[in-house]
């Protein structure tokens, strides 16, 4: 049984991914900056 996804869910999904994705991306960038020292 598959159901049609509510169109308003798209915004909620986007918000939910942003909520976890933005801090994670910030952390990854910080780590990459530190990791670049390996190549200096």
């Amino acid at each position: 049984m598959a159901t049609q996804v509510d169109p308003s869910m798209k915004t909620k999904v986007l918000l939910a991914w942003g909520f976890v994705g933005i801090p994670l991306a910030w952390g990854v960038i910080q780590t990459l900056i530190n990791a670049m020292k390996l190549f200096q």
Partner: protein
Amino acid sequence: MALLSFLDREHTVAKPGFSRWMVPPAALCVHLCIGQAYALSVFNLPMTKLIGITQSAPGDWKLTELGWIFSLAMLFLGGSAAVFGRWVEEGGPRKAMFTAGCLWAGGFLLSAFGVSIHNLWLIYLGYGVIGGCALGIGYISPVSTLIKWFPDRPGMATGMAIMGFGGGAFIASPLSVWLMSKFNTATHIGVMETFIVMGLIYFCFMMVGAVIVRVPPPGWAPEGYVAPTKSVGLITRNDVFVYDALKTPQFWLIWAVLCLNVTAGIGVLGQASAMSQEMFPGRITPIAAAGLVGLMSLFNMGGRFFWASTSDYIGRRNTYFVFMVLGFILYCTVPTAGSTGNVVLFVLCFLVIISMYGGGFSTVPAYLRDMFGTRYVGAIHGLLLTAWSAAGIFGPVIVNYLREYNITHGVPKANAYNNTMYIMAGLLVIGFICNFFVKAVAERYHMKANDPRGDALAQPAAARG
């Protein structure tokens, strides 16, 4: 009472129109927070100077005493995942996430109190015991829910969540350093305030996950997905009761495979900085070694998603065969890279090895689902995490003691790790053999349609047809 019923499994059933893509962020809300455990070491040095402020004073805690906080947390991670696995499975993901959030934040707050009155036992209890239980419950809380929402891509789904556990340290590490810099004064080190703020942030973050998580309604399937009507190869259509899984050789073979893979990875993960500097003296500086550790943690996180997603296409057992064979080749290559002074080869070997270490964690829930069905996969996964606790002891012990043994017997520092690498390669050979013997679970272990032990959950797969 209303809050308690809000947490119940039946109140988390998704209504029509819900998108399953809301569930991975809910899982990430929990895993990104509890992944902070990998960044606990940033507090080590500041906590050795709480009295002396600029340097350790008599009465300040020693690094060896502080090391027990992490060890306790890992011990209670494995223990609580094993003990509370069935409760997590039957209570549903929201109740488990809520509990994990309360314990995680509570652990931080109690630790903050421990710092304020300078009582290490309170930190052992707060972060080590209570936080460790939060780690175990939080780690397994979204696993079976994700597998049920993504029956077509279970590896990718659990890989996303477990990737969050690897990525949690990326956020926690710079955040902790920044917070401490804000709370530090000339006469005070801001560890207590940092613990309080982090505990509150993590509580809010984990509550968001608990609120947005949903379980699929009975009989739900993604659009276009046709569930196989019978077991194919290792992928079963039946369910195995959580404690019956312990009676199967398959559980212990996968336990050994995970334990060996993690032992091999953990052995180099904790020693990468020292090992790289000693194998390439003068060429890899302490700063470059710190960069290598950062790069390795990125590959650890990326590997969790990459390998688990790949397992959806090539199969779980084959994925572990890749870990064992490729790992064997790479561990045997590291001494050659050291003796020929090939830094690039050395770094490449370590990055791939560490990606497979992460991949071992993230692929195993889907492996268990293939073998034991979906119904108790979270609880069985909880039991399997004891392999992680065991590996956490074996890995560092093998690396540290072998290095000491070699150096005391006159082996130059640059070559002291060679034997360790060959032993790690040997462990992977044993892992390959264990993985080779994993076959489909015997029918006598399958749950029957009228099995009363599973009343708290939906009908077993055998009854669903």
